[in-house]
């Protein structure tokens, strides 16, 4: 999808007033709470996270060598390996493979890198009919190509009622008469029936990879639905798209990363399907031999590796950071304007699209650090987002008005007397009665138009005065005690 990251504020305001989205986000908050309970139940979580972080850091320090090893081993397994420096190159490789096998239809599993490089549009331009097979992606495709709003649950912004209406409208011809369109099980059966035919008839399968293994050339795919496996096992030709940071050194590392990924993404200790693909399908009864092509995509990663933002390359796309983010929890994923929402999305979007295209996103964060606490890869997201704000400040990308406000704040906050005087003044004006409107609002100019956020008035007695009183009382108490 085309990124639209520069109108975050408008989209966020719209999202706050969208009642159906708010209903869907409430359901997601309940889901996130159950995931958190599972993470807390994994007593070795912190030790596992430290170990995973150390392994991933080592891998990133030697990324070139591990990728070469992966390539060598994958080729031994009869897998064709390609390198793509940019999204353009990756799209060209994929469409060329499709042309070489005369593919007209493609069963597509969910692939973040595929969405990142806008592969759906390239396939469309090539005249290839794209069957989205992940249920959420299928729902979004039915909805006219809506963008995903979460990395592990792309359609969480859709309520069951909306999906029911969508299916009712789009499946009219295929619907069995005996189905109850209101029952979620029947909605599922309807989708299953339609998608099963597509798996069986697709000319080519296009999937992503959660991890690549350097020591034996394996591609690991993790799903609950099994759609990625069907997209791999049924068509004769499979294309695997993987970004270069997905590589892990050994098979023995997979279990650690898989457990952390699954627990943090869905609260499961393992998803229903975790598959290690070691080569193409063997020749079938009709003499057809399978072919597997792996496209390793850089698309800006090597540049990130050399920057101060390299820890983001540890990201396993579990979605834990967004599930625990108060901003994401209030507005969902669409206002972020691209495929990566939430805290990790702020960083990925700024680095891959350019800081200037994602300048508002760096401020869609309260810096409360919950994302740091829950990230299974120990990515310091809060610090990275703070870093993006610094970059904006230092490159002069912050608007003059905001700079003036910040400079004024800096001046006031570094002058204790002035600061006390200002806060006292605000506090006093905030208690002035205004006929018909309660009390005077000294922050009327900064009120958020959504009404969802209000700047709090300072307390009548500020903290430093309370502190002085406390110190004085304590001094007196000590003197009394001594006497």
């Amino acid at each position, binding site marked *: 999808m085309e990124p639209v990251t520069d109108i975050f504020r408008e989209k966020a305001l719209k999202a706050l007033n969208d009642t159906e989205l708010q209903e869907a986000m409430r359901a997601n908050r*309940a889901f996130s709470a159950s995931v958190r309970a599972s993470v807390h139940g994994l007593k070795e979580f912190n030790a*596992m996270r430290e170990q995973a972080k150390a392994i991933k850091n080592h891998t990133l320090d*030697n990324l070139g060598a591990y990728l070469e090893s992966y390539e060598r081993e994958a080729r031994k397994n009869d897998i064709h390996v390609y390198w793509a420096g940019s999204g353009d190159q990756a799209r060209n490789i994929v469409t060329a493979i499709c042309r070489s096998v005369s593919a007209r239809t493609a069963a597509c599993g969910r692939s973040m890198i595929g969405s990142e490089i806008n592969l759906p549009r390239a396939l469309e331009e090539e005249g290839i009919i794209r069957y989205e097979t992940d249920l*959420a992606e299928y729902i979004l495709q039915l909805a006219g190509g809506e963008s995903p709003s979460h990395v592990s649950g792309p359609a969480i912004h859709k309520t069951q009622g909306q999906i029911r209406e969508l299916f009712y409208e789009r499946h009219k011809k295929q619907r069995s008469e005996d189905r109850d369109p209101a029952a979620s099980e029947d909605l599922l059966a309807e989708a299953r029936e339609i998608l099963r035919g597509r798996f069986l008839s697709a000319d080519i399968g296009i999937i992503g990879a959660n991890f690549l293994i350097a020591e034996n050339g394996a591609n690991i795919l993790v799903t609950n639905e099994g759609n990625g496996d069907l997209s791999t096992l049924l068509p004769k030709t499979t294309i695997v798209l993987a970004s270069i940071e997905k590589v892990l050194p050994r098979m023995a590392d997979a279990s650690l990363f898989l457990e952390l990924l699954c627990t943090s993404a869905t609260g499961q*200790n*393992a998803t229903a399907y975790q598959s290690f693909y070691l080569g193409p399908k063997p020749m079938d009864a009709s003499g057809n031999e399978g072919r597997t092509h792996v496209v390793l995509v850089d698309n800006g990663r090597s540049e990130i590796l050399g920057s101060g933002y390299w820890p983001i390359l540890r990201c396993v796309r579990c979605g834990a950071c967004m599930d625990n983010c108060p901003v994401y929890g209030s507005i969902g994923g669409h206002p972020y304007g691209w495929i990566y929402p939430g805290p990790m999305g702020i960083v990925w979007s700024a680095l891959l699209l350019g800081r200037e295209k994602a300048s508002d996103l760096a401020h869609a964060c309260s810096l409360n650090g919950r994302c740091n606490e829950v990230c299974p890869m120990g990515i310091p997201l809060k610090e990275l987002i703070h870093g993006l704000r610094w970059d904006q400040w230092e490159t002069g990308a912050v608007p003059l008005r905001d700079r003036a406000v910040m400079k004024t704040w800096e001046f006031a906050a570094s002058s204790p007397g002035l600061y006390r005087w200002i806060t006292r003044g605000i506090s006093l004006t905030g208690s002035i009665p205004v006929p018909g409107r309660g009390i005077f609002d000294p922050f009327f100019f900064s009120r958020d138009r959504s009404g969802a956020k209000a700047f709090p008035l300072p307390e009548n007695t500020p903290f430093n005065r309370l502190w002085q009183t406390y110190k004085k009382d304590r001094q007196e108490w000590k003197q009394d005690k001594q006497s």
Partner: protein
Amino acid sequence: METRQTILSALHGATKLRQAGQLPRPWMEPAQPPSGNALIEQFMITAVQNGMRVERAKEAADIPGLIRKNHPHLLGMGEICVAPALAGIDWSAIGTVVPGENNGAFAVGINRAHAGVARTGALVFFSNAATPGTINFLSRCHIALVCESEIVNAMNDVWETCVAPANAIHFISGPSSTGDIGGRLLKGIHGPLELICYIVEKRPLRYCPFHGLTD
């Protein structure tokens, strides 16, 4: 080749100032893993939590009778697809069985698992001619057989027993499921709606992922 070189040079340039440390050892569970019956119990508990139905059988030959007794609804679902590795078992009690791949025509498929993993409650399947992967994904009901002695503690223990390569290794811990409609976990979106696992006490014959059952 030019792109490959460009990417590798960029990666080398990006990391040359870093001090690359040693590769840390793989993760090991700090606690003593269970063994014997406790291991099987843990596998059963975790697998059931994942939505799998787990039953025990004395030997593989008892499985057709158990299916007939405990899952009679499966008998009216047409011919049954069986992994060639299990073709030596007499399946006549449950109707006509067809050894080989599931091409989508079979509602019920029976496969031989290479191992079971107690920590995650997952069954491990090799995808090859003896145990085709399509049985695991295209059947409406997926039935699997694993021996008690093949249940291991963690995923990494599987690699120790994995001597023969296959084109894919699948860890399957429950029926196909999704939470995309109404945030509720629903079973059977693409793959099986049911996953039934038989844990067999007596190992029938030596199992080889490439040659099926052998002496």
